[in-house]
């Protein structure tokens, strides 16, 4: 979270912000992020910064796998996912590990 917060504060300062209202993160289903832990850490770190009192918005990105056999993509919420067509497991992860600072709402 300090990575996310320091990146957010750096960007906010570069944009000449005096206050940050919203920090929006994109979180992949397989990123390993625990939303409660993130929220807790944010609340612990934000006071005294431009982001004090800001809202943390989390956009969740579902995991998408590619099945070689069926040449098609499928969605899943865990790493042991199998293709719904051929039932074969796929490790070819195309999305779902994201942990991104998506946007900031500032003044």
């Amino acid at each position, binding site marked *: *979270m*300090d*990575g*996310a917060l320091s*990146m*957010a504060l750096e*960007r*906010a300062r*570069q*944009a000449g912000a005096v206050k940050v*209202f919203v920090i929006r*993160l*994109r979180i992949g289903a*397989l*990123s*390993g*992020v*625990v939303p409660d*832990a*993130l929220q*807790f*850490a944010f609340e*612990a*770190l934000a006071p005294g910064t431009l982001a004090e009192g800001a809202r943390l918005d989390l956009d969740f990105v579902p995991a998408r796998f590619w099945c070689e056999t069926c040449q098609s993509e499928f969605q899943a919420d*865990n*790493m*042991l996912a199998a293709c719904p067509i051929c039932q074969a*497991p796929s*490790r070819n992860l195309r999305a779902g590990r*994201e*942990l*991104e*600072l*998506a*946007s*900031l*709402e*500032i*003044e």
Partner: protein
Amino acid sequence: MCKDCGCGLPGETPIGITGHGHSHPHSHDHTHDHDHEHDHEHSHTHGGRVHSHPHSHGGHTHDHDHDHDQAIAEDQHRTIEIRRSILEKNDRLAERNRGFFRARGLVVLNVLSSPGSGKTTFLRETVKALGDRLKCGIIVGDLATDNDARRLRESGAPVVQITTGTVCHLEAEMVGRALRQMDLGGLDLLIIENVGNLVCPASYDLGEDFRVVLLSVTEGEDKPLKYPPMFNSADTVIISKVDLAEPCGFDREAALANIRKVSPKAQIFELSAKTGVGMAAWCDHLVEAHEDRRNEDPFLT
């Protein structure tokens, strides 16, 4: 602090790096980050700077004054799109480490497991068993104490300790700093023993060539299913303490099936650092990896 578990809140124990392993810290660090990013700003303004809208209805005038501060706030409220990975900084520093390792022809292992699965004994015995075949250096991360560093020094290899305080994993930047404390001259293999933890270290690339994840027979066969991100990221899975397999009732076939399910690409070694069984195959594998490294890089002889 860690993105996964929130460890390492500020104001707590700072990260300490101590090296007693024949360290000649004469590295010159010329690192200049050039960040040329261009944000795309979308500002949403509402009504410019006009704060009163007088308009008339049938001959009489109403003056609707907006609150001045509110109008200014709305004017300047804007959204900046960023879309950058939060681990980007670590990833960038890991790539820098990787380039540094490649240039020196070093093979680098990032060794991960739960606490107590036998990393330290395994690594000490690996260094001893390799003997003159590969010259090893070790970086060891722990929350506190240098007990592991002391045990690892028994192998004769230079050891640098990183004390992470409250941080539950190593990051590329800590490894970069630890490298300055180590005499890398003549080293073939750098072993990084990560903090004992099967969750958060999975997200942090250190610049290693191989991620080595240990699963001791005492931990149960289903560990790979419980910690899929970690096992999925492994290049090598070591089933350790196989001398205890029988007393533990360890189901070898089930463990192998679980590892392959989560991590089909990982190479699997089964061994016991205590009895030495399986250590020769593991050491041969490291020697081969080092030869491959030497062969693939035209700048090294």
